[in-house]
């Protein structure tokens, strides 16, 4: 079997569901003949027709809004936003309607839509092309927020997102769209949307990260392993609803934790994870949970992008000081 990249796995999942379910339709800007600006929908219009893989006029509010109408009338729309930075015009429909249709009508109508967007920085793109505002969506009741971090998880989680009876915001870490290749059998098997993935076992410290930030996080875990420190690495993947219990389980072993994300720190999802650790695992904690995140400023234009993003150096520093807590009291 050929090895495929994350973005190819997205394509494979979309193709699978288009083939399996006539209610599935794809739409967005440039997803047809052009195959999407990242080629996530490459070849799909040719295979499934322009009725089912449609270019839209240039209006994200419209994309978000018509998806609601399509979904409540029995389709399974999968809408692509070209970049996460261009979702904002569509937020109103996502927050005020997609997230609420089932609740508002007491289950009479529902809104099984998937809003896909490439997200995160690191590809030297212009302004607005490097957003990581998953926390905004994660705050909204009624949504699911899913971030894959490998080709296999992209495939399985996207299948699950499309089949899910409720709206899902599916954020694809574009920095690792082509970072690794993996064999991903096109077997139509979905992955669960209600639990974390443990990417590495360890008992010294728990590292929580998602999306592209896992790349550096796993590298750090390797570095630590060379020193005999075993980090457990957890990818929540589904950020909302969050499976906190898998994280707590890990803390039972480690008592120490660092959370890594690209998004700005203040009111980012790291905060929620720390809050729940505080609530559920207060007595387990041997050190304050640290966050390694994007800075609380606008993602700079690309010359300074690498200074903004969490790198292995910053993660390592945080891990070491967490392990050495209390300072001087060392392990």
């Amino acid at each position, binding site marked *: 079997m050929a090895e495929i990249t994350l973005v190819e796995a997205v394509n494979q999942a979309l193709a699978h569901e288009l083939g399996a379910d006539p209610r599935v339709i794809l739409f967005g800007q440039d997803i047809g003949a052009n195959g999407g600006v990242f080629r996530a929908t490459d070849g799909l219009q040719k295979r499934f027709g322009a009725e089912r893989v449609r270019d839209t006029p240039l209006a994200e*509010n419209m994309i978000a809004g018509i998806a609601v109408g*399509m979904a409540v009338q029995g389709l399974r729309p999968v809408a692509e936003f070209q970049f996460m930075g261009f979702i904002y015009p569509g937020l109103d429909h996502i927050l005020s*309607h997609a997230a609420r249709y089932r609740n508002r009508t007491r289950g009479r109508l529902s809104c099984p839509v998937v809003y896909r967007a490439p997200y995160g920085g690191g590809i030297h793109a212009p302004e607005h092309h490097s957003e990581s505002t998953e926390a905004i969506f994660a705050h909204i009741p009624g949504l699911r927020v899913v971030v894959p971090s490998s080709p296999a998880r992209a495939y399985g989680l996207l299948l699950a997102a499309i089949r899910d009876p409720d709206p899902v915001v599916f954020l694809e870490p574009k920095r690792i769209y082509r970072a690794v290749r993996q064999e991903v059998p096109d077997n139509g098997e979905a992955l669960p949307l209600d639990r974390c993935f443990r990417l590495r076992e360890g008992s010294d410290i728990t590292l929580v990260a998602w999306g592209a930030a896992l790349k550096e996080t796993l590298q750090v875990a390797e570095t630590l392993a060379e020193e005999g420190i075993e980090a457990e690495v957890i990818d929540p993947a589904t950020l909302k609803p969050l499976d906190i219990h898998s994280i707590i389980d890990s803390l039972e072993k480690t008592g120490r934790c660092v959370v890594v994300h690209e998004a700005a720190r203040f009111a980012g999802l790291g905060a929620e994870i720390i809050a729940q650790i505080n609530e559920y695992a207060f007595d387990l904690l041997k050190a304050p949970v640290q966050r390694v995140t994007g800075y609380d400023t606008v993602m700079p234009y690309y010359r300074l992008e690498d200074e903004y993003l969490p790198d292995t150096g910053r993660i390592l520093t945080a891990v070491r000081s967490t392990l050495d807590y209390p300072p001087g009291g060392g392990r």
Partner: protein
Amino acid sequence: MHKPRLHPVASFDINHLQYLDERGQASQALPDSATPDLLQSLYRQMNLARLVDQRAVQLQRTGQLGTYPSSLGQEAIGVAVGSAMATEDVYCPYYRETGALLERGVEIEEILAIWGGDERGQNYQHAPQDLPLCVPIATQLLHAAGVAFALQYRQQQMNEPARVAVTCAGDGATSKGDFYEALNLAGVWKLPVVFVINNNQWAISVSRGAQTASRTIAQKAIAAGIQGLQVDGNDVIAVRTAVADAVERARNGEGPALIEALTYRLCDHTTADDASRYCPPEELEQARAREPMERLGSYLRDQGYWDDGAESEMQREQAEVMERSLQAYRSKSPAPPTAMFDHLYARLPEALLEQYQELQARDSAGQESG
């Protein structure tokens, strides 16, 4: 300055439709569809809408209902729209919609429940496909475009019968991007959707003239390359004919239309509003003379289709219906607190179980102590 020579590349006309003038006289021959039966039924339904409105406002005044938006003076629009649709079509309402909802089979007690702070009212028992009332201005227009796409797709890809989406909004709503984006998409995708604008001259306190410099609302269709028509919105026959025509065209694959129905809001914006702060009384007075009920009533009487007997019979019947609905509304037991989680997701996620149980515990504690 020397005037340049310009080449015309496109030209457009916007038209107005009326059958019954302000005095209830036919200003042109009525369409064949305007049978005595239909006209009587439109009259009845307008009357019922007005009755429900009146009682709802009373309920609000006595603390039995939340904020309520009456449609006094605009009943012709909702009733005509509802009446012009086929049952299997999909209605995408805004919030000032009592007449249309009643035509669509939504129960009076459902309407009251919605404004009475109970989501269960949106779970229409007899209009299962219609969208719930929509509060954020103009958003329903995009939902309607999406619905229309789904209907078109299901017809073409899944061999289902042709259906149409119909949606309403106010004049204020036409200033919002959603309006234009919906029209534009409907045009370029040739969607089976009819947009009806209740131009009641006000968006709360903002006058029609302060919303837009365009001479008519109907001409906004030109921007999207779709049909636009202005109708006398106090003439239920004109509204119904225009909407029915547009629905038929949409059903036949001829694309969308925008219909501007000219009327006037003869009431406060909602029960939370006080229109005397901004609405010139003369203007209101003049508008009253053009309202739709008397106009149709006097036509019906002139034609011998209606008389005092029919009128009092109708009033009696509708009063009864209203009374039963009020009873039903008042006697409905409240939803338990946990109901706020029951339909958030298809299945309650594990992550929410604790919160659910907290509410459950509070509820039983409350019931025991209460």
